[in-house]
């Protein structure tokens, strides 16, 4: 067993680590935290920034600790005078070409560069000089690029090109003029970007950020003529607490509702209910298509980044997508129709705000299809991060809040709705309802654990009413591409496919609290957040969407039955092929 262990010395400490460990990891095991910037575990391990350099006895230059593997008997110094000076020079150089308007930056307080400047107590920049100038791209409804703050770490490029296999951005030019850009420096809006926002999550500084709609939300909240309604996606409640110093994966549903009420929303609803509604419609659609063997496999459509990806890359396969709108769009449409009618509110006076873990939903809510009779389903989408800012701006001591509950009559959601926020959740929720429908009874076994977990692609075959249904669940667009290619080539024999654009699903969406590279390499953020959702499911009294009394009531009072004409009017949509590049 010892054969696989390598003994080395780091800062005079004897360390024994597995063969193949990087110096950076080995140091971590000895409680030595070597600073990094461009390093993002498993995603960007390229050694560009040079912050992680260390001195190794017997070697001429410095070693790149984030890449280089340990060797037997290696003697490493992580803070020798030479390393310290070089590291300071490098940090200084990075700062010398960085717009240092930290106080007015979105990432103030959560910036890896700022943290390093603090760590090294940088008092002034020694090597001032020319700075590269970039125009800000804020054309898209979702993402703002300010590359004056870019430090060329390329984490965003790796997230976009390697993880998602989109490649909307890449490094262009060379030398000092190098920068991250799209083809021809066009707006993200006009290229192959899907607005998944994984680049934002990867960015250590404020070079990439969401387009903020807080001001609009505040304006509506303060307008007495506007009836403000908010809904929160399942994944938001298990991440929002992080922005207030709570452990990753804390379920803060009660405090969140309480905070939203304090912000002044007239009604606080749960997108989980929208998710239940989606299941009602989608499971029904699936059952119909399955019975008629019509355009199978059917593919879920609740991830707008995925939908944009499909429209741009697989225009020939759009018929496979479920016609269901995503949960918050469905829910918005219901608020402005069913709810408005029931409580006699003018739908035009309702401002529907969705709090989402997602960047692409900002784009989705602005899609022209997303309205009924001239009434927009959802007016604004803000992210988990933006909500935390609003709470802070409203002087609310979030951690001290008493728990509150969602408003009636659309507040009570099932456990099936909750798990929508993680990869595999939509499939599991849909199977719960589809199985009961096809079998015609309340099945006692309804947990589909094969589709749970963080793997990018999970398959299961279930037998329902004597028929086999083969399902596949993928998250991350690179995995989506593989499955779509298989479908295109006729190699896939699935009946049901769940696709989410973000690796890990909505809990890891582009609108979620941004975790530093250090946290991401130490903790499985996805698992902690997803586990919290499964706990909510487990603790729910009702765990199948079709058993929800809210659903029963909505269908009885308004929607008639799943797939009805009125359901189609409000809850379904269509897709149109889009040019991959509109330049």
């Amino acid at each position: 067993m010892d054969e696989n262990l390598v003994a080395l010395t780091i800062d005079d400490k004897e360390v024994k680590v597995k063969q193949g460990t990087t110096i950076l990891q080995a140091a971590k095991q000895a409680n030595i935290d070597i600073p990094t910037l461009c390093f993002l575990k498993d995603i960007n391990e390229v050694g560009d920034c040079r912050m992680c350099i260390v001195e190794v006895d017997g070697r001429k230059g410095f070693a790149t600790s984030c890449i280089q593997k340990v060797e037997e008997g290696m003697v490493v110094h992580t803070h020798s005078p030479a390393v310290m000076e070089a590291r300071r020079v490098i940090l200084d150089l990075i700062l010398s070409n960085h717009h240092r308007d930290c106080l007015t930056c979105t990432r103030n307080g959560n910036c890896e560069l700022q943290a390093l400047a603090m760590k090294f107590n940088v008092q002034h920049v020694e090597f001032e000089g020319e700075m590269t100038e970039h125009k800000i791209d804020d054309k898209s409804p979702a993402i703002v690029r300010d590359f004056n703050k870019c430090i060329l770490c390329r984490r965003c490029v790796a997230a976009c090109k390697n993880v998602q296999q989109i490649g909307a951005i890449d490094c262009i030019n060379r030398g000092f003029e190098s920068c991250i850009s799209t083809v021809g420096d066009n707006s993200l809006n006009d290229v192959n970007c899907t607005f998944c926002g994984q680049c934002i999550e990867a960015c250590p500084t404020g070079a990439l950020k969401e387009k903020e709609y807080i001001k609009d939300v505040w304006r509506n909240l303060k307008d007495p003529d506007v009836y403000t309604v908010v809904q929160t996606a399942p994944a938001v409640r298990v991440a929002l607490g992080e922005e207030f110093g709570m452990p990753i994966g804390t379920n803060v549903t009660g405090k969140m509702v309480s905070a939203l009420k304090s912000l002044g929303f007239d009604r606080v609803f749960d997108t989980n209910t929208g998710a239940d509604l989606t299941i009602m419609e989608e499971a029904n659609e699936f059952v119909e298509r399955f019975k008629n063997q019509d355009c199978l496999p059917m593919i879920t459509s609740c991830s707008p980044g995925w939908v944009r990806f499909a429209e741009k890359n697989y225009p020939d396969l759009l018929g496979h997508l479920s016609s269901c709108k995503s949960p918050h769009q469905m829910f918005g449409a219901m608020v402005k129709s069913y709810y408005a009618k029931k409580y006699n509110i003018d739908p035009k006076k309702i401002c529907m705000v969705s709090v989402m873990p997602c960047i692409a939903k900002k784009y989705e809510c602005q899609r022209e299809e997303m309205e009924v009779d001239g009434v927009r389903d959802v007016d604004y989408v803000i992210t988990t991060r933006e909500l935390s800012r609003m709470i802070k701006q409203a002087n609310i001591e979030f951690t001290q809040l008493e728990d509150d509950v969602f408003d009636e009559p659309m507040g009570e959601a099932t456990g099936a709705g909750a798990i929508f926020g993680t990869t595999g959740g939509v499939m599991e929720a849909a199977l719960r309802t589809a199985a009961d429908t096809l079998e015609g009874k309340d099945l006692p076994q309804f947990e589909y654990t094969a589709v749970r977990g963080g793997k990018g692609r999970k398959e299961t075959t279930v037998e329902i009413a004597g028929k086999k249904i083969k399902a596949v669940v993928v998250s991350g667009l690179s995995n989506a591409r593989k499955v779509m290619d298989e479908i295109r080539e006729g190699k896939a024999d699935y009946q049901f496919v769940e696709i989410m654009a973000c690796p890990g699903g909505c809990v890891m969406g582009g609108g979620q609290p941004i975790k530093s590279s250090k946290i991401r390499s130490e903790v499985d953020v996805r698992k902690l957040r997803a586990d919290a959702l499964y706990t909510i499911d487990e603790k729910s009294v009702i765990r199948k969407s079709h058993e929800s009394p809210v659903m029963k009531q909505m269908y009885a009072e308004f929607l008639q039955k799943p797939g009805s004409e009125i359901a189609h009017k409000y809850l379904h949509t269509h897709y149109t092929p889009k040019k991959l590049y509109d330049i």
Partner: protein
Amino acid sequence: MKTLEEIHQIREQKRKELDLRVNTAADTREKHILVCRGTGCTSSKSPDIIANFRKIIEEKGIQNVRVIQTGCFGLCAKGPIVIIRPEDTFYAMVTPDDCREIIEKHIEKGEIVERLLCKDVDNTMVNRLDELNFYKKQKRIALKNCGIIDPEQIDEYIAFDGYKALEQVLTQMTPDEVINEVSESGLRGRGGAGFPTGRKWLFTKQAEGDQKYVVCNADEGDPGAFMDRSILEGDPHSVLEAMEIAGYSIGADKGYIYVRAEYPIAVQRLRVAIDQARDYGLLGKNIFGTDFSFDIEIRLGAGAFVCGEETALLESIEGRRGQPRVKPPYPANSGLWGKPTLINNVETYANITRIILNGAKWYASIGTEKSKGTKVFALGGNVNNIGLVEVPMGTTLREIVFDIGGGIPNGREFKAAQTGGPSGGCIPKEHLDTPIDYESLSSIGSMMGSGGLIVMDDSKCMVNISKFYLDFTVSESCGKCTPCRIGTKRMLEILDRMCEGKADEDDLYKLEKLALNIKKSAICGLGQTAPNPVLSTLKYFRDEYMEHIKYKKCRAGQCKALANIEIDPEKCKGCGICKRNCPVNAITGEPRQPHKIDPDVCIKCGTCVDKCPFKAIKK
């Protein structure tokens, strides 16, 4: 496809035919007119010379005379060069109009065209190439065939022992024996860093992998270095043959030559050579009927100096931006597409066949203790004989500059020699007697580099020179790592300030601090060596830096912002030459009266300084 037998026949027959190329006493009635078709001579119209010769010969119906295109003879400054064999008469600076005279006088009447002969630096007339001082101290191994054979005729290559080494290796030696031979020869990488070639081959052989590759680095990027190009243009088969030998040794069946697209002639010659070698079965499946198969593909670079760095080169072959990878792992273990890959440069390969044929002992007997064999230099700058020189390792700088190079023109003083291009340093007068080998050069703050050797006279400002190199590095930095991307830019900004007279002593401190830290922390060779020109000039010419900073003075008068061009009225005779040559009409004056320069109009180009016959104008 040719059998081994047929190759032997070609060799024997062609060797007889071509004896006149290397033997002035050759028993023949033929004459060969050799015309250099290297890039230098080609750009001064040598193709027209060839065409003219052929036209005149045909027109006159002359028999037994052939016009042959060859690679570079080396003495580019005297180009276009024409040599008549077997007598080996050497004509310099020939124009297409001179062809008739050469044919009518030399070929038809056997008289030498004296006006086209070359004068040596000491003004003696020279009849033959090897009578020139330029050639006396040279030893041609890598350049052996350059200027002797027609590079586009495989038979001519075969005639001079071409593909004999490959035959020997494939039929008589094990891979280990070949590697051993290369190791024993002491050959080290000619691309710059000087890593022992045999060891590189051994590591690649030992590396585990089902597929291995042999790569030839022909991305010669040093501004002012052109030996690799000359080898490819003059003797392309020697590189192909060596790559095959390497492939056999390490267990690879595929080779890539990464060559600059800016070298169209070299690319063309390589293409022809590969086609001909394939035709003869000297490339491809089961070479010489053995189990060994090998093929070579050309990949064109597209104008990025950094691609000369081996890992950047691999990235580029794979079709990406030429951004270097962090080492280790080295290409020997993880190279092209992650497979074990052997990378050597052109000149290194050019030595291989000679080592195999003449033996490691022979090769190791040339050069110094740690640096064996010869090195080709591209001698340029302020030196009389500009061109390619190949000298045994250990030759001193003084011998190269003064004996071979013929010293400094225009009666100026030697100030410094720069080796290693943007990665190297400036060597001052006091180190002129340093023997040229890897260790000695790095001990004085420069490096061997790929072989650029630029001589500078005392009209050169060393601050300006280091700015020139930094400017090069900045524009060629790939931008991947912070120290190189931003650090070299900051260094350049400081040097700019110095040359503009706007720097203070703190700038000097910053410059040095940046230089030392970039050297240690950049990812690749380009970044790690980028500060060398600055560090070496700081070491030897620090006083010039101080003058720029403290007194805002540039003693060489090269830094325009600090320069002030004036006409000394005592010395000016009013001849008007400066006035006529001034490109911006900044000079006024009546004939035979002292002239004046209007400083507001003057662009300080220095033309007048150079043109004044009375040395009356000073910077």
